């Protein structure tokens, strides 16, 4: 596993490294900019040119107002932990990972997304709802996915 970590983010101590058989995203033309950005260590979402809403997942038009005038913007990577489970039922490819944290996080720009939490043990007392997080990137067998770690100084 190689990690591409933006400068301001602490190196994480553990990642989720699924093996062969794990689901990988197959980008479409509309979603490819998200995955291309992740491969470069950037978290990008779309923003509406008409109503300025940031939104995710990628679409051809803004779901708030219907405008087709949408563009890709890099976001801060700062997020908070909305909710999670500690998964004991491994998906294909996750058998060797052990219990891992699947979370829904909210970016400070507004959109929510599913991710894995890394850099903390997969135990409830290290996973506090609303804790601040920072994006990191994990190369999973050739596909870089955004994951999130407790923000420095805020680890539970």
């Amino acid at each position, binding site marked *: 596993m190689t990690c591409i970590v933006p400068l301001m983010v602490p190196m994480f101590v553990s990642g989720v490294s699924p093996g062969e058989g794990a*689901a990988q*995203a197959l980008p479409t033309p509309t979603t490819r900019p998200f995955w291309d950005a992740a491969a470069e260590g950037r978290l990008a979402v779309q923003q509406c040119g008409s109503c300025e809403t940031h939104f995710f997942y990628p679409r051809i038009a803004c779901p708030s107002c219907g405008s087709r005038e949408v563009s890709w913007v890099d976001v801060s990577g700062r997020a908070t932990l909305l*909710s999670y*489970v*500690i998964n*004991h039922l491994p*998906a294909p490819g996750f058998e060797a990972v052990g219990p891992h944290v699947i979370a829904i996080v909210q970016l400070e720009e507004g959109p929510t997304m*599913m991710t894995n939490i890394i850099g903390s043990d997969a135990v*409830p007392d290290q996973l506090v*709802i609303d804790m601040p997080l920072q994006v990191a990137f994990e190369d999973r067998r050739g596909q870089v996915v955004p994951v999130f770690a407790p923000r420095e100084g805020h680890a539970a």
Partner: protein
Amino acid sequence: MSRPVAAIAGAAETSLGRLPAMSELDLHVDAALLALADAGLSLDDVDGITSAVHNPVEIAHALGVRPTWFDGTSVGGTSFLVHVRHAAAAIAAGQAEVVLVLHGESRRSVVGRHPRPMPADGMLGQFELPFGVYGPPTMFTLPYLRYAHETGTTLEQLASVPARQSEWSHGNPRAARPSLASVDEVLASTPIAWPFTKLMCCMVSDGGGGLVVTSAERARELRRTPVYLWGSGEAADSPLVSQMPDLTRAETFERSATAAFTEARISHNDVDHLMVYDAFAHVPLYGLEALGFVGRGEAGAFVADGNTAPGGHLPMNTNGGGLRYTHTGMYGMFAIQEAVRQLRGEAFAQVPDVDVSVVQGVGHFFSEAATLVLSNREVSA
């Protein structure tokens, strides 16, 4: 309430559990024949058919029906509630007269089961599956900790949902889990997706069910007590759990139930019996709050204190639910069946004097919802 247009005139479940001799197609046909026999009708009477697991046209042909109305809306476990609502609309419009609403699923034995593709280039495939979610136990459960955080609901209260429901199914030979389960036993069962343990998750079984929906007028001439549809509603939101607008509210339930209660012109005090789809232990808690039977954050204590258990004032999930009775993957058919049994006075754990039953269904992970208000009376007293 204006006079109801449609009624359930026949209802039946197939055998449940492990049925390796029956394909999904067979289960649909079995359910159809059982429901027609219950109604005292024959294949020749049927002009409409619905199903969610398979294409209704395949089922109609295997059954020997040549329909002039069909609906294959497939929106997870609430599909059959949606079908009853759509069938009633078709009957009101004069487009159909006798509709079979059918379910059959070989979830456990996987015989003749169509694959359920989750393409890697879909939104689920790109933005959720790569993070290790593995079906409903790791997806439907994801919103819960936020709800617990905001409402103060405890793990013991969450565990009380299957524990209390086990009081209804206790000793029922048709229930997959017919024993009593204590809160401690629920908490101590195998961890699945913390904080959810195995006994907070529905079981996986084979089975099916059928309903005969017809006009209220025709239903009155048939052999069974009609179960009238007083009102219904349906609603949808994000198909991705990570994009739910509020992780602490079943917002789709709120919209479908408001429509159903409004159409039926009932208030909460009119409801004698409630079914809230319980694929996982938290769903009835969300449902009790979304339907307005309790205030926000009150559902956990309400269930733990026995208000929905035998002897409580709001009997809920009286077959034991998906957590104790059966769950084939799409459970909504069985919630309707139990409401029909209660309204006919023939349930295993019969509640006295049930005149009005509300059935709340959910599809996928709060993505779709439908509500039925059913009664054994044509008009409210």
